[in-house]
């Protein structure tokens, strides 16, 4: 052991002499950290915001979102519908992949089919698609089974991959988890994006370099980007203060104040598009975990109203969230198409005696007891929010037995089963953002419509809220291409679930980022982090 120590010190001394690292003055290296690693370099490996937006630095989509989440041309210069079931995409001429080969309609058709193919996690973007075909070197046509006004919105996250590269490296499909085969595209990348993958060490660091031949004029001034996953929040904060990283996201609420006091650091806060809400089991004739037998108190609108109007979201914002939340009464957030600002008003809070009276009128003069499920590592302060709700409901005579657990156990318990039978919960917390379409219809379809095995609606309506009038409106808005008519439908449907007290929307949590003072960046509300807007002074 002694020998090897001496040995390695000698080697290290040699190394110091030999491997001098030279950095040029105008090379701008940007180092940043997040709590977890991006799980794959394959842009279709997982439908998850972090993976999609990280890989969009390497893989350009056809259509991308700007700072305000509005669509703008990227690899497609023009797109639209020639008839209700036919879409066209005109490909930008002169675009080159990182290896210098030109982008053509073949690559686009290949990429879209790959995203809809085996192993890909993006299949739900292609439900309406009948056929994707090339109709010229720079034009792709898509026919749909029914009118799908949201096709372009859905595809704004899909990166375009080189067909020749994928063929050469046998990466025609995304990695198939059920086969024990490695996939080249998991570790390597070939897109047209503003950055090129230089080195990928999963779980350790990922190094990107600027693409000098990018088709767009870069806003960023970076030459190199080093991303490191740093799981421990205290270490991330310390690394930022020490200047070892230039930017981090997912700043723990407890550290925000101390970072704001640091003269070298700026903190960016904005609302996230995800809404965190509480749901009730309104489906079972009798709750799984309750002292009320023979009936289900949550089926009664009066009970739901009493609970809704006894939960003080502003108090939760002040105490639990330390100001970092944006209370809401709707299931979608500003920035999402279909958010109705004039309907986003929470009804007045009830005094405990008023709420108790409301419960008594519903037949529960002594309140009742119910179980509640809550994750403890999914949303910001999720467990603490639930604890606050438990305390607030205790005041009106409802005894809530809280079970908080890790997300892998939590979701397996509360989500609906494969046959769409209800999840094992009476009262639960969930967060949702229509991350594919940025449109309210996704929320209606997934969370609010009646669960239905045949139509596959209401997959995440864990408590089984059901309103036939709303179901009809939601189905109609799916295919309605006239914007004014569609907006009227959205408004009507929104009113229905608000008046029914179908859910208790709580808030949007804040997206909190922190960066060194010399870094300029853009913070979109979908919690994506596009490197193309980053400048380092």
């Amino acid at each position: 052991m002694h020998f090897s120590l001496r040995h390695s010190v000698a080697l290290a001394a040699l190394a110091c002499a030999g491997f001098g690292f030279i950095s040029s003055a105008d090379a701008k290296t940007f180092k940043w950290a997040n709590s977890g690693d991006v799980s794959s370099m394959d842009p279709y490996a997982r439908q998850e915001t972090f993976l999609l937006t990280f890989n969009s630095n390497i893989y350009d989509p056809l259509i991308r979102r700007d700072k305000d989440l509005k669509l703008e041309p990227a690899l497609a210069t023009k797109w639209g519908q020639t008839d209700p079931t036919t879409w066209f995409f005109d490909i930008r001429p002169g675009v080159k992949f990182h290896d210098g080969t030109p982008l053509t309609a073949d690559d686009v058709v290949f990429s879209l089919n790959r995203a809809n193919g085996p192993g890909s996690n993006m299949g739900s973007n292609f439900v309406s698609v009948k056929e994707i075909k090339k109709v010229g070197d720079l034009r792709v046509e898509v026919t749909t089974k029914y009118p799908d006004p949201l096709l372009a919105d859905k595809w704004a996250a899909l990166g375009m991959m080189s067909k020749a590269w994928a063929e050469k490296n046998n990466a025609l499909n995304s990695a198939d988890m059920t086969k024990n085969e490695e996939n080249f595209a998991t570790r390597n990348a070939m897109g047209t994006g503003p950055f090129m993958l230089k080195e990928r060490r999963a779980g350790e660091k990922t190094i990107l370099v600027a693409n000098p031949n990018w088709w767009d004029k870069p806003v960023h001034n970076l030459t190199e980007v080093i991303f490191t996953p740093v799981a421990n929040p205290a270490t991330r904060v310390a690394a930022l203060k020490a200047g070892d990283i230039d930017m981090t996201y997912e700043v723990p609420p407890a550290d925000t104040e101390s970072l704001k006091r640091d003269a070298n650091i700026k903190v960016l806060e904005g609302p996230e598009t995800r809404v965190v809400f509480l749901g009730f089991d309104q489906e079972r004739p009798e709750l799984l975990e309750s002292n009320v037998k023979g009936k289900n108190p949550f089926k009664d609108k009066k009970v739901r109203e009493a609970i809704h109007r006894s939960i003080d979201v502003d108090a939760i914002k002040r105490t639990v969230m330390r100001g970092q939340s944006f209370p809401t009464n709707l299931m979608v957030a500003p920035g999402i198409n279909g958010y109705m600002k004039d309907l986003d008003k929470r009804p007045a809070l009830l005094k405990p005696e008023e709420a108790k009276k409301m419960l008594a009128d519903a037949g529960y003069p002594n309140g009742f007891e119910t179980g509640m499920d809550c994750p403890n590592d999914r949303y910001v302060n999720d467990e603490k929010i639930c604890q606050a709700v438990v305390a607030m409901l205790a005041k009106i005579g409802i005894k809530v037995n809280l079970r908080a657990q890790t997300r892998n156990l939590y979701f397996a318990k509360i989500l609906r089963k494969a046959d769409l039978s209800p999840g094992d919960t009476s009262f639960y917390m969930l967060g949702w953002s229509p991350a594919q379409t940025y449109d309210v219809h996704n929320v209606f379809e997934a969370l609010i419509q009646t669960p239905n095995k045949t139509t596959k609606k209401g997959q995440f309506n864990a408590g089984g809220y059901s309103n036939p009038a709303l179901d009809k409106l939601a189905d109609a808005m799916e295919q309605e291409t006239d914007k004014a008519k569609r907006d009227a439908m959205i408004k009507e449907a929104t009113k229905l679930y608000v008046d029914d007290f179908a859910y208790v929307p709580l808030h949007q949590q804040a997206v909190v980022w922190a960066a060194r003072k010399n870094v300029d960046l853009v913070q979109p509300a979908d919690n994506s982090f596009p490197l193309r807007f980053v400048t380092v002074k």
Partner: protein
Amino acid sequence: MLAFILRRILQSSAVLLAVGLVAFSLFRYVGDPVNAMVGQDTTMEERDALREKLGLNDPAPVQFFHFIANAARGNFGLSYRTSEPVGRLILERVPATLELSFCAAVFVLFVGVPMGVYTGLYPRHWSSRLLQAVSLIGISLPTFLIGILLILVFAVTLHWLPSFGRGDTVKVGWWVTNFLTVSGLKALILPAITLGLFQLTLIMRLVRSEMLEVMRTEYIKFARARGLTNRAINFGHALKNTLVPVITVAGLQLGSLIAFAVVTETVFAWPGVGQLFIQSVQFSDIPVMAAYLLLIGLFFVLVNLIVDLLYFAVDPRLRSQGGGARVGGH
């Protein structure tokens, strides 16, 4: 000797199998990986189909059998989280953990043993008492707190050392090493101290009490009567006779240095197997967890085997008896 080694290897495989079986029966308590593997909008039907294909609906013994059957052919499957081969994922992380544990062990032995000898020889001196008191910190403060404190002092305030990560590394064959760059060596210092501090205290105290014991024995008095130098007595006679228990404990502790690196690696974002394990637990990444637990089991088994063999080298009485049968009984 050979028979002894063979017997130990047989025992070890039984231990590893048991570790694997226990691990698989515990995995259902870490939750369901499928909800984390798929996108938000994946239907429940598709989720269940994936669960079925991955064999997650099978009972634990069946899953374990499939795992062992594949592992025996050197195939540990794909990680649910990163879809990379588990074998390579772990192999890539092993150098980081081994280098960190090695540095921590060097720190423990080269600081802990001299400190133990010193406090053993001069038990009443004020500096011994000070060392004893300070070393209590190593035992009483939790590792993550020590790590964060060191980061705050040496990275945030003094800017001497990096706050996290491995720094610049050099690839030698498939082994990625820290030892060949300045920033790599600097990056090792804080995590190695954090990881070693607990063991340092332990070794120091052990050596101290053994030294106190040995210094009272007759043969030390004879050695002094023979007029040997202090150096020869203290190190040649006294220290050597304290070594058998120290090697046992140090060997076991080396195993736990590797296993406990989990916390240190998380605090310092050190890309070793421990960090990989934590990431995998959060994701219920069963193939990685299973392979990691087997690997750690293997480490412990190997370290124990080496410790047993070291006894032969250190204790002449065992050599003269020639057999190894009694050795395994510690």
